[in-house]
């Protein structure tokens, strides 16, 4: 949190004075103000933590040229609109809104402040001054799947998932495909907890999956409860999400599919400063460094680690795509023909399970 010191007030007064008389000279010396809206507290791991790491990386790279400020735990909806508007009217030239539910408030405020640039994460509505950005989370999931597939003995992985939306389904499918690429016997059991965030339930679901024979568990929810559940059981591994969660499962955490927003934030800020920014729908992946996986647990055999490294290289140079055919759907019907690759449009509308996922997809 920022505290207003007398020095800052004087500074502000001085710059205000300067702008009034020599507006051009003063504005060149002013740092460019960039705002971030976070949906949860930053903490030590998770979605918001990764965004904040990106903010810090951008600050580090651009130095005095920018000044950033964040507001955390902003609920999606009406309150978000107030916070975003506040940034815009306080002279922030660029605002990142980092949660899906900020979509409508962002668009609404952007209309009122056409000179301010907004970047909204994971949404699908853009405008002249609103760009969107999202990562190819599934690439990290695929690699994590390879690790899980090489470690499982029961050939069953458990997946604690929040809501059946395309983003989550892409993750489940990519993880399953990754597992089966090294272990064709492997299956994935999914439990829907119908909540992004309820550590108790996430924990219960993980316990159930383990009781039903899963010896690797992963999650698409926001807490670290699943990793902790695995840590308490012998012979059960976990795969984290968002951040490296090895701290919560020192022995059981195999790897994690992680997000890295720093280079993206830096590029956008540079573009805006240079006046070359335009509204785009950005979908970056491993190639651009937005997605990665956390360092592998030392128990992972070298052979498996090499396979992961190989697949990573192939994804980066484009010679392999996690969703390249042939892919069968859950009922064994061909969903993607051999040689074909799912388009971004198809990926963004994914609403089916690949072969190897157990259970019926809730509609």
């Amino acid at each position, binding site marked *: 949190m920022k505290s207003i010191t007398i020095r800052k007030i004087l500074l502000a007064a001085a710059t205000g004075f300067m702008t009034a008389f020599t507006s051009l000279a003063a504005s060149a010396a002013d740092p460019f103000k960039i705002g971030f809206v976070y949906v949860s507290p*930053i903490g030590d791991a998770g979605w918001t933590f990764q965004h904040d790491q990106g903010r810090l990386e951008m600050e580090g790279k651009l130095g005095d040229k920018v000044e950033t400020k964040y507001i955390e735990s902003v609920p999606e909806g009406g309150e978000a609109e107030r916070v975003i508007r506040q940034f815009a009217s306080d002279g922030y030239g660029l605002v990142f809104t980092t949660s899906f539910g900020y979509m409508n408030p962002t668009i609404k405020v952007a209309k009122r402040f056409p000179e301010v640039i907004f970047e909204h994460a994971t949404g699908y509505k853009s405008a002249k001054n609103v760009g969107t950005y999202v990562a190819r989370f599934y690439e990290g999931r695929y690699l994590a799947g390879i690790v899980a597939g090489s470690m499982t003995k029961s050939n069953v992985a458990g997946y604690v998932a929040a809501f059946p939306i395309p983003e989550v389904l892409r993750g489940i499918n990519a993880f399953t495909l990754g597992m089966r690429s090294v272990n064709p016997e492997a299956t994935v059991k999914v439990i829907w907890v119908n909540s992004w965030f309820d550590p108790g339930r996430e924990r219960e679901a993980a316990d159930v999956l383990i009781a039903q024979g899963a010896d690797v568990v992963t999650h698409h929810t926001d807490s670290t409860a699943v990793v*902790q559940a695995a840590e308490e059981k012998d012979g059960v591994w976990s795969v984290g999400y968002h951040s490296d969660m090895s701290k919560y499962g020192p022995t059981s955490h195999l790897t994690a599919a992680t997000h890295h927003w720093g280079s993206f934030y830096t590029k956008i800020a540079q573009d805006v400063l240079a006046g070359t920014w335009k509204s785009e729908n950005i979908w970056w992946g491993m190639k651009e460094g937005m997605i990665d996986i956390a360092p592998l647990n030392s128990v992972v055999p070298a052979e498996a680690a090499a396979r992961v490294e190989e697949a990573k290289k192939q994804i980066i140079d484009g010679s392999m795509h996690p969703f390249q055919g042939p892919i069968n759907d859950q009922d064994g019907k061909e969903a993607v023909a051999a040689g074909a690759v799912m388009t971004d449009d198809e990926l963004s509308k994914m609403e089916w399970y690949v072969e190897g996922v157990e259970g019926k997809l*809730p509609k």
Partner: protein
Amino acid sequence: MTETVIGILLATLGAGTPLVFAALGELVTEKSGVLNLGVEGMMIVGAVCGFAVAAESGNLWLGVMASVLAGTGMALVFGVLTLTFQSNQVAAGLALTIFGIGLSAYIGLDYTSVALTGIANIHIPVLSDIPVAGPLLFSLDPLLYCSFLMFAAIAYFLYRTKAGLLLRAIGESPESAVSLGYPVIAIRYLAVLFGGAMAGLAGAYLALVYTPLWVEAMTAGRGWIALALVVFATWRPGRVMVGAYLFGGVTIIQFHVQGFGVDIPSQLLSMLPYLATIVVLVLISRDINAIRLNAPASLGKAYHPSV
């Protein structure tokens, strides 16, 4: 198969225990005629204080004590408002919950996602090796045993002791109790504080045993479920236990059903614990006269000693 069943039963105990603590505490409070809707708030402040103290001191039991004290402290605020200043219990309770959620987020700022090893299970030698009964009864975590003890103690206290009778009498008719010379306000204070301590323990169970971590709003509505349990259990401790484990059990079973791939929409399954608990408790306590008999007659009404 036996292992799956044992797994389900163990998970049920774990899922039900925070509800047992919170609901039994609220039951005692309500039996004295005071309705405290602040259970969720007391629980979450208990959770964060317990976690913070455990993380700082490295001693989990100090953490549990801090949870109990924090829950009691929150209840004291409620007591001062409603018993000393006679303000509206419903409004004060709701305010306590909202305040508790905010306060816990503030206290927990530095503790979000700190890693902590939770309280370990006790494996009673020899007994824990008995098949089935061993894992189910003799190798649980200490707070779970504590919840069994609390249940027995509360049931005994309410229905077998003079003090319990007095507490219930105050809940029925504070005027009569005061005319017999009993300190109604003081006893209600004790009942409220006890409820707070139990809600704090429920928080401790969540933050130190069940999911040893602190995250904002981690109680996720369990305080409200505990409140509902007390009403649907018609203020009977035994039925509170049935309700809490039923709720926990159905939650776990619906996950198992999903895991086995049974074709029922998960959204519908998520609803089941609530539905099943309400239906069962309403069925076992459908006798309207018994409800009247069990419900504290003065529940929720401020008592003015001067009148």
